[in-house]
């Protein structure tokens, strides 16, 4: 019933995170009926494919290699923030609270998924830290079991290099109500309390 090219487009769109078959169908029909958006999308996709690169230093995605963060002379060369995904890098950049360099691991250690240290960017991180002049490495990984296991391994490998290794604080998010907090978060919040 659906023409083959359109069916192909729906199948491809359905593979995008956040889109199921129904949503992909809606998106495909919308694009067909709004040709101006279809043309723009086509051009944007092509531009992204041709012009974006993965930074060979930090694994960020940018238009040039090394990326604008790695080449920015105004940024602090002595601090390195290790994140799991590029989206985490963007989130920290959005906060405006950090002005050092980044390193994107591209995943976390996970025994269940068979991901070991060599499958993620740990060897390149160690080489970068050994060759560089970093005074502090901030481990900004998720506060789950995989994140914490990866953080432990990183600190174990980085501390012998004589570098200060820190991790993000854990505790109450902004606007949180205490009675809705799980016991783990509350526990960490109490452990990490600060004096006024």
């Amino acid at each position, binding site marked *: 019933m659906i023409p083959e090219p359109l069916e192909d487009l729906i199948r491809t769109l359905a593979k995008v*995170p*956040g889109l199921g078959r129904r949503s992909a169908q809606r998106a495909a029909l919308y694009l067909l009926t709004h040709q101006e958006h279809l043309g723009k999308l086509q051009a944007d996709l092509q531009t992204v494919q041709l012009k974006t690169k993965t930074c060979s230093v930090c694994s960020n995605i940018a238009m040039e290699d090394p990326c604008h963060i790695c080449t920015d002379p105004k940024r602090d060369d002595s601090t390195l923030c290790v994140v799991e995904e590029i989206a985490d890098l963007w989130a920290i950049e959005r906060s405006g609270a950090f002005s050092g360099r980044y390193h994107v691991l591209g995943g976390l250690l996970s*025994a*269940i998924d*068979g991901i*070991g240290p060599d499958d993620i960017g740990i060897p390149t991180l160690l080489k970068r830290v050994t060759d560089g002049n970093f005074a502090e490495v901030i481990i900004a990984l*998720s506060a*789950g*079991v995989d994140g*914490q*296991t990866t953080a*432990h*391994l990183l600190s*174990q490998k980085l501390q012998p290099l004589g570098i200060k290794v820190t991790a993000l604080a854990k505790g109450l998010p902004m606007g949180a109500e205490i009675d809705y907090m*799980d*016991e*783990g*978060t509350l*526990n*960490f919040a109490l452990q990490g309390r600060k004096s006024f």
Partner: protein
Amino acid sequence: MQRQSEGILLEIRAHGESSCICKVFTAEYGLVAGLVKGGRRKKSELTEGNVVQITHSRRLETQLGSLRLEVLSSPIIRIFDDMAKLQILRYQCELMAALLPEDMPQPKFYDRTKFMLETLGAEENYWAHLAEWELDILSAVGFGLSLTPENAVPCPDNSPLYYVSPRTGRAVSKTMGLPYHNKMLLLPKFFGGQEGGFLDVFSLTGHFLNHALAELAPYKKTLTTRQGLIDTMKTLT
């Protein structure tokens, strides 16, 4: 059909974009697996080692069914900053998810495991407890070892136990085992033998765990986790 029980969350696998399939070791029904709808959005609740109250619903026994989980306690909080203990907890969860049979209650082993997880944070002698726990899980899945004099291979001269048969898992005395010295496993002091440290303890249990996991291809990586744990032990002790 609806079942309710307390359990320990062992494994969380992503299923689609928002759901996950969880394995829970329950007090009343043994291992229970089910789909947790929207589970990937509840990452703080769905953490391996959490003690949870489950409601498992399914129409037929052959179906996977859906799971609803409510966290009762979170032992991981107390060990989050201790790499060795965190590795132990992960390893225990992985091993149980790999070896325990579904729908077969093991109340004693459940109580033992829950107690161990809940006291792991304050426990100093955790390597010893882990070694004993490995014997317990081997026993729970049908690979029980006979290391006490009552269960060991009888020895005419009553000499003390020294070896363990790699095939039967029964302890034997030095005189009985000496002709097979190259094939025999050492019975470590910790399990009632005459010599050997913790590495020998884990080498003994490792031999039988290897056998138990040999047929479970997707879970062979559990042995890699175990090796990582033993490497950590070597650096700490």
